[in-house]
């Protein structure tokens, strides 16, 4: 590996908590100029939080933060930008109403005579940036409606064009195809060779090993280790990430698989997914695997009815589920734990009781009237069953940790006694302990004859939990793999190259 320069970025035992949620216990990271540093860890390990602290978006509660040896304290993202730090955030943040070019140069547009923006120069620069990244986007196009991938590319271009001394990329490749990833890597390497310091966050080990010089592992908001890539293996890294052997993470109890509960045929939605057909049987856990942006959530959402679809049919327990009508789906016995807990799963500003009773409250009503007391009576036992950690049912869901919030969402749906439970990213951003609890719960439910449709971006989770793996690639199901022959390789190939057959 190449000889890396002086320390560019150094964090020591940085702490950050959001109310009761401790996102970061002691985050440490030391990055040298002229090197690419990998930061890995499970969902919710605290990577993004660390990034946001470096970016000046969050202020750390404690710990050291040195930039080029000097202790710094950024009050805003503008401050970190000025200090030469460029960040690609996990979620693309663009201005939909503005052109791609304006998104790139907002606030630092090239100025011509009389401090007036020089659009020609701006567009030219944008074009050259895109050339360097090897994409051809129309610089004049509005950002609105760009695919996740293209949004991500613009974020990358934005960060590169800042020509910063420290470049941080939080899962930039999550939505990118192989070609794009290769180009990105080429650019990253050239930046490294110019002597810049890069931080690269990804859940894909092959990328980490292909690109990075050093790797730092985080778990539960804590620093675990830093090693040169050359001297470690993915097995070691995984072990450090989860703190135990992968196998015992997923206590899947074998369940007797019964009759089909959900039958989806030829589901189609222009621009999102195409000709999707599959079925889920009682007691069966079916996983939808694939890259972020593949369209898995959209499929699930369409099945449940919160999203529309153009054609195709969804049948639950023998009856056809009307399109675009979640109420009907719920009545027929469907439950849906969405991927974005804070936005879709919960009303975070309402009480635990309110959330747990949210779907069944219709049934709680006497003479059409319901009381807070009735909600509490119904909510208590379910919260207890899932061991939700809160001191009172009137507490705001917002005050709970990600894991507990997830439990509340699951409790909410279990309360409806569903035949089929769809769970999108069941363990995204929840700590290791809760994680295995959730897994145990899922397989327990399957064991009791519930049909489970699970979406997950985490391969170990998919392989550990699923009886069957359906791989989604660009909105098409490209493979239907049985538990027996589901391997990381088989799933990944199907997920990446569309060539694979269903």
């Amino acid at each position, binding site marked *: 590996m190449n000889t890396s320069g002086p320390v560019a970025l150094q964090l020591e035992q940085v702490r950050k908590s959001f109310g009761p949620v401790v996102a970061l216990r002691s985050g440490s990271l030391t990055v040298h100029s002229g090197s690419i540093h990998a930061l890995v860890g499970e969902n919710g390990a605290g990577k993004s939080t660390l990034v946001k602290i470096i970016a000046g978006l969050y202020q750390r509660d404690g710990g050291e933060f040195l930039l080029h040896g000097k202790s710094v304290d950024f009050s805003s993202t503008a401050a970190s930008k000025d200090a030469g730090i460029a960040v690609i955030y996990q979620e693309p943040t663009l201005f939909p109403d503005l052109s791609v070019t304006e998104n790139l140069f907002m606030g630092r547009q090239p100025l011509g005579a009389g401090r007036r923006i020089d659009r020609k120069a701006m567009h030219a620069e944008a074009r050259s940036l895109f050339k360097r990244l090897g994409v051809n986007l129309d610089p004049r196009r509005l950002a609105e409606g760009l695919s996740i991938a*293209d949004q991500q590319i613009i974020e990358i271009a934005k960060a590169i064009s800042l020509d910063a001394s420290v470049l941080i990329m939080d899962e930039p490749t999550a939505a990118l*195809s192989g*070609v794009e990833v290769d180009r990105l890597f080429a650019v990253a390497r050239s930046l490294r060779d110019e002597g810049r310091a890069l931080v690269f966050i990804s859940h894909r080990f092959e990328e980490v090993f292909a690109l990075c010089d050093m790797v730092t592992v985080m778990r539960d908001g804590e620093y675990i280790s830093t090693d040169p890539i050359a001297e470690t293996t993915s097995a070691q890294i995984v072990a450090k990430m989860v703190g135990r052997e992968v196998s015992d993470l997923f206590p899947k109890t074998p369940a007797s698989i019964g009759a089909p509960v959900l039958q989806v045929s030829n589901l189609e939605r222009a621009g999102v997914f195409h000709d999707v057909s599959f079925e889920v049987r009682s007691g069966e856990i079916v996983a939808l695997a694939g890259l972020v942006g593949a369209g898995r959530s959209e499929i699930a959402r369409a099945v449940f009815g919160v999203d529309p679809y153009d054609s195709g049919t969804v049948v639950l327990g023998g009856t056809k589920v009307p399109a675009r009508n979640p109420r009907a789906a719920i009545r027929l016995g469907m439950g849906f734990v969405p991927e974005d807990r804070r936005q879709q799963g919960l009303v975070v500003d309402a009480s635990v009781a309110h959330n747990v009773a949210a779907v069944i409250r219709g049934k709680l009503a006497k003479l059409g009237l319901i009381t807070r007391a009735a909600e509490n009576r119904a909510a208590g036992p379910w919260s207890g069953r899932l061991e939700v950690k809160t001191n009172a049912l009137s507490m705001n869901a917002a005050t709970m940790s990600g894991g507990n919030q997830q439990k509340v969402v699951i409790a909410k749906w279990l309360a409806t006694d569903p035949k089929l439970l769809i769970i999108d990213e069941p363990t995204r951003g929840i700590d290791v302990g809760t994680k295995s609890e959730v897994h145990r719960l899922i397989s327990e439910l399957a064991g009791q004859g519930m049909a489970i449709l699970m979406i997950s971006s985490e391969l170990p989770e998919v392989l550990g939990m699923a009886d069957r793996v359906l791989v989604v690639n660009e909105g098409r199901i490209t493979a239907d793999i049985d538990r027996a022959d589901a391997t990381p390789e088989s799933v990944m190939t199907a997920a990446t190259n569309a060539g694979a057959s269903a």
Partner: protein
Amino acid sequence: MTDTLVAPSRKSSAQRFVSTLLTSRESAIALVLVLVVLAATTQRKTFLFSSDSWRDLLLAPSILLLLAVGQAVVIITRNVDLSVGSTLALTAYLTGRLFVDNPGIPVILVFAIGIAVGALLGLINGLLVALGKVPALVITLGTLYIYRGVVLEWAGSNRINASDMPSGFLSLGTRSFLTIPVLTIIAVAVLVAVGYYLRTTRGGRELYAIGSDPDAAHLYGLNVRRRVAGAFVLCGALAGLAGVLFAARYGTVASNAGTGIELQAVGAAVIGGVAIFGGSGSVWGAAIGAWLLITINRALPIIGVQDFWQQAVVGVLIIGAIVLDRLLAVRRSRKLIEARDAS
């Protein structure tokens, strides 16, 4: 995902200019305006071809135009300012009082004071909105009452009469320069300046960015608070200027001047294609929208519609405008999806 969804446009800048000109919302509204004028003129040709009515055609909209421009800037940042009507009343009455209390005060100074006071009132709105993190609708609803109350209390039942103000100042309201009324020239000059600022300066573009996605703007490191406050100051200043011109044009200022004009200003902006949720639209559109509102008001009686139906027509225009926007947006996103599938 495929590595590209949209090919760069091969259009020359000239082509692009023409196509935007043809497809832009501004020109659509302008077309409607022309049609209205034509319709009225065919009914009675004096609507256009008599020096007075030509003057009124240009003069009548100029005050609302100023308010609409200011309003547009605020709306672009995903806010709204309902207090402009009260601000106008305050500065209009202030103008009168200045002349009454200090005879011989230079007109230019009166303009400066009027604009400054307007800006100050705007600043109050801006600070409350930006620092208090309270939605503009509520704050400016409150200041609408407060500012109006202040002027009502201050003016009481005495009003400024034409005779209280120097004829030199009053004639501003009616004098023309090369058949273009002075008021109109002032309004258009302001329009051009603001339009230029929004289009070609960093500050201007940041206003659009903030309106387009405030969270992203914050994440990006833009100084959201300062910009938003600035937008309110500009809006207030223009309302102040409008107040001074109001005094010049109508010669008489009572405490109820400009009551309810704030909704007209918002309406003009919306008709002109300024999205109520910020991020898009232009002051040009807002200006034409204002012009259209006023001209329709004047044209209806001539076309033979009793002029008190005017408000209903305005309502239809506003709703038509936003529905139209929605349809266009839907069509655009459908196109984009097709583009994605095609690739």
